[in-house]
Each structure stands twice: as C-alpha cells, then as structure tokens.
C-alpha cells in the first residue's frame, strides 16, 4: 500500500486517491503549432526514476496536488499544492 502525502490531510492510503499522470506537461497556447499540441496530448518523458505527477484526494479533501515519486522503487519523495514551478 502506498501512502500518499496529501498537502492538506497528511499521509493517507493510496485507495483514497485518483491518479492523473505526468504533471510536467503544459498546455500550449491555441496558436501554437500542431507538433506542440501533439507533444502535449500524447508524448511523455515516461522516466524510470523520479516522476512528478498529479494525484487527486478523491476520498478526502477532493483537492488536486503534485507528488514526486520514484517509478522504479515506488518511493514517495514529496508532495506540493498545484503551483507552477
């Protein structure tokens, strides 16, 4: 069982959360090129190692936040509210 550190509620069981994926992709501007939109919608870095990702505390405070987690060891490193880096 993963313990996901919600920035507002503290560590909770993974079953309370919904996963959404890579939090580093940024929505391009409407005027940006097709290839930028292709990258945004489809391609991912998909690292083996540290990954910044969106989680939603569906069964708790219902807020979105970013988690930094290792995709190889499943170690959860940190979490933060949804602020821009």
């Amino acid at each position, binding site marked *: *069982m*993963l313990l996901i550190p919600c920035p507002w509620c503290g560590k909770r*069981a*993974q*079953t309370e959360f919904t*996963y959404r*994926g*890579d939090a580093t992709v940024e929505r391009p501007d409407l005027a940006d090129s*097709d*290839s930028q939109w*292709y*990258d945004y*919608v*489809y*391609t*991912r*870095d*998909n*690292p*083996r190692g540290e*990954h910044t*990702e969106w989680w939603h505390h569906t069964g708790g405070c219902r807020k979105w936040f970013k988690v930094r*987690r290792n*995709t*190889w*060891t*499943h170690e959860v490193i940190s979490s933060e509210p949804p602020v821009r880096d």
Partner: protein
Amino acid sequence: MAKSPFKRYSGFSLLRNALSNHRRWPRAWRDPEPRKSYDVIIVGAGGHGLATAYYLAKLHGVKNIAVLEKGWLGGGNTGRNTTIVRSNYMLDGNANFYEHSLKLWEGLSKELNYNVMFSQRGVLNLAHSDSEMESFAIRGNAMRLNGIDAELLLPDQIRQMVPHLDCSQSTRYPIFGGLLQERGGTARHDAVAWGYARGADALGVDIIQNCEVSGIRVKDNRVVGVDTNRGSIDAPKVGLAVAGNSGRLAAMAGLKLPIESHVLQAMVTEPLKPIIHTVVTSGASHVYINQTDKGEVLFGGDLDLYNSYAQRGNLPRIEYVVQSVLTLFPCLRRVRLMRTWGGVMDMSMDGSPIIGKLPIDGMYFNGGWCYGGFKATPGSGWCFAHTIANDEPHELNKALSLERFETGALLDEKGSGAFAFSH
C-alpha cells in the same frame, strides 16, 4: 556461420534420446559472443523480438541478425502474462492484424516444431447490462464482417458452458449474456519464446543474453549501432521490441513516445481439478480468468494505475481483482492464492500497439502493447520483420504506425481518450 545442431523434435527423437537416458539432447540454442556488426539488431529477446528475428531470417532471407537481451530470454512480459490469445477487435486496423496473428497461432507448433500448447478453448466476454450486450452485438458483427468468428450468447448458454459461474440474479453484476470467440484460447507462454528462440537460432540468428543496450548511436539522423555492456555493435538497422522499457530506449535515440509504463499484476491459485474450461473475462470489474493445464486458476485485472517500472504491484489491486473473481466464481472462495507478480506494460495513448518506422532512418519500433502483447506475438514478429526488411510497413500494420497520433487516425477501441492508463 556457425549453426546450432538443430535436431527436429519427433516421436523418434524422443525414443532415441530415451534410450540414451536423455543425456544427448542437443541444446536448443547457442550462447554466442556478440560480433562487431550485424545487418539487423533487435533489442529485446521476448516473444516479439524473437519472432521478428525468426521471420526476418525465414521469410526475408536476412542473414546476420542479433537479438540483444538485458536479462534472460522470455523473462519479461512474455513470461508474466495470462497467456490469453484472441482476435476479438472491432476496428479494422486492429482486427485484421490480430486475426492474422491468430491464424499464425493455429499453425505455430508445427511451424516451429515446438509444442506451444495452443489450446483453442474459447474466450468468453461477459456482459452485465443491456447496453453492454448491445455493444457486444456491434463488436461481434464487426468481427464477423472481418471474417473473424464471434457468437453472441444468452445467459442459459453461458450457464451450460461455464457451470461454476454465478449466473444468478443476486450477484453483484448479474450476467446478461456474452460474446464468445471459439477460436480464441491460451498457449504456453514460455514455450512461445523458447520455440521462436530455437527456430531463430537454427536459422543462424545470434541470441545474446545478459547484453543490455546503454546507448543508441545515430549519425546524420541515421542509426549506426548500439552500445552495450558487452561492447559496441554496429548495424544499419535497429528494431526495438522492449515493451515496458520502450520509453527508455527511445530516449537513448532522443525520441519521445506516446507511451507510459504501468505495472499490471497477475496471480494464480493452488492447482485444482479442471473446472473452468474456457477463458472468462468481465469488463464490469475488469478481470480475466482461465485455468492452466497444471490446474491453477490464473487471473489478472486492471493496472495499478500509476506510472511504474517496478515488476511488482501493490496489495489494493490484488484485493480488488480477487474480489472480482469471487463475484464471478464464488466456488473459489476457499482456494488459496499461490503466487502474484507484476509486469511493466507499455501503455499507448490510444490503447493500440505501434509497429512501424521511427523518425530516425534505420530505426523501427514495436511496442505500445498495453495488456495485449502476448496474443499478438506471431503476428507482431511477422509484421515487424516485414517492416524492417522492406523499410515500410505491411498492409496489416499500416494502421499501427507511430504517425497516427499526429495525423489523428487513432485506434481507440473504447474511445476512452488520451490517457495511457484508461485503456
């Protein structure tokens, strides 16, 4: 070229080797040192990579092929799947490809002179609502129009076919019917890797295990070779068939793919007498069940649903899958789980695979298999070999190109959108 002492397996060879106390069986494949250069390098000695090498040598006359494997052959998803083979797809781009694969399965043991224990015991998808029955009718009709067998079953027929299934109205998801593909079934997954390995080796392919690719050398947008822990190897053509590690290999060539890696678990119970004679799947709780020839009930469910390269999963998913199995087969309640494991899935953004060229000359990609790579093994190798040999895709894998994500010609069977984990 040093060829292995390929001896056909037969009743006669079994008898002869029995008389010499089984001490003189030739080894099934060699263990060669990597050479300086090859005409084609395939990265990944799973079922797909080995099948590709086999068909390249057999059908396209390519000599000097190496298959590089970081671990041992067939040790990745080839040895971790739930062994189900089917071709019950709705979209033409998928259906024709998987049907070709199923036809290759039907002759595979003979083709390879190796018993892959392909058993056409049928694959039954259960429907749990009227709307699901309607969607099955649509899919079944689409399959039949493509010349693939499909039969819509009513609850009474299902009750007779799978007597231990809970077909009552009091269960969590009552059964409204199902879609059966009789020609689907299961195969012995390890035997598929071993059979292709032995066949490819006999055709002169070098299968090099414990050889991890650490870099891909590209010059003027053309691949020239790979770096490995056993030295640099040159080749004008490199094909990737590395499933969950697709993203890492592509990154070595400076490419980004529409793929995420996720962990998928499977598990077996202790062996029982035969009680489930077909493959049973249910979309309502996303679970698929069959009984192995050893008697173990083998099942899997959904992904753990977060990006992962770990070949192990987590208990909440196991609990959910077990609950789903018990909802369908309450009679298994007292049976103990014997083993669970995980494999790393290359989840593509539309849920369909990619077999085609990469934007670097001489580089080819085979991946994005999501949950369904095993059944595709023969067809995947067959199409990938054609693509590599001719530097263009075959009609059967034209729709499975990487470019479809840019052009919008997606193959999203469920229409669930660009989330790798939703397929």
